[in-house]
């Protein structure tokens, strides 16, 4: 593998570099406004999401306090829900935070972090949808086999 140590560390980050600026899209005031509003709505959803996470956590604590096999099982299910929902909300929160920062302070690096979080968010949701679809497919297949079709 060829190592290029002469390449700047921030290759691809250089918004003001003339060699890059010709290939990029113009970030017009309208686009900034769309990003700012999107970030504000994203922040609203993530605040709601954090409240939801708090409620899941409370139900987890109350279920584990019940004790017994049922309590443990319900606690595990709640923990799984927490593990699925928490990363989604965290990514949305980071997208909102960094995109807002990028627009407010004209910060290209913050925009990179914000959009990387948006990419990860859509990627994660897409993979979760695939997992759910595969799960439904398997359940349907088992159902069809069990009724002898």
């Amino acid at each position, binding site marked *: 593998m060829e190592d290029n140590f002469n390449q700047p560390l921030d290759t691809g980050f250089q918004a003001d570099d003339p060699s890059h600026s010709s290939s990029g899209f113009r970030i017009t005031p309208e686009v900034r406004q769309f990003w700012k509003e999107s970030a504000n709505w994203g922040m609203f959803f993530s605040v709601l999401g954090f409240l939801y996470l708090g409620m899941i956590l409370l139900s987890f604590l109350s279920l584990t306090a019940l004790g017994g096999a049922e309590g443990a099982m319900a606690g595990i299910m709640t923990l799984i829900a927490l593990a699925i929902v928490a990363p989604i909300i965290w990514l949305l929160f980071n997208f909102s935070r960094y995109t807002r920062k990028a627009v407010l302070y*004209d910060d*290209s690096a913050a925009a990179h972090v914000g959009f990387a979080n948006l990419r990860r968010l859509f990627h994660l949701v897409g993979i979760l949808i695939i997992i759910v679809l595969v799960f439904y497919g398997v359940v349907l297949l088992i159902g069809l086999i069990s009724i002898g079709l």
Partner: protein
Amino acid sequence: MENTFNIPGGLNRSTELMHQDWATTAYWANFIAIVNYILLGLGAFALILLSAFASQLPGVYDSMDNPIAYYMLAGGGALSIVIGLVFLGLALVINTFLFRFARRLKTALDLHDQDAFETAWFNFRNYLRWNGISILVLIVGYIVLIVAMASALSGLREF
């Protein structure tokens, strides 16, 4: 040694890294929107089945002497269909914003189209805005329902 690490510049132009992130975002957003369209189609099919079932309900209870029960059944069926239609319509509009965002962003990246780039983010803003307004309306609806139920219960207690 020369320091080649640039301090991040102003947000005037998009960069190659942003384009890579947006390409992946557009791909998955398109996938999610298509799956949502399929699910909405299934939802519409379920609603048609429900409306067919609901239209049979008053006929089933024709022999009932109680006209209030008859109209409650007919009205309840119609109300659930109307609510289902509103939710389906709203979900269709919101999902279309996501689909347009994905498509316009992909077109912008493929053809380096500035207009498509701006339309893509306009649709993304609308997608989040409509989702947010729907959730706000839902929360307000829940609060109104809770207050109405609480006042009805307190009225019953006084009675």
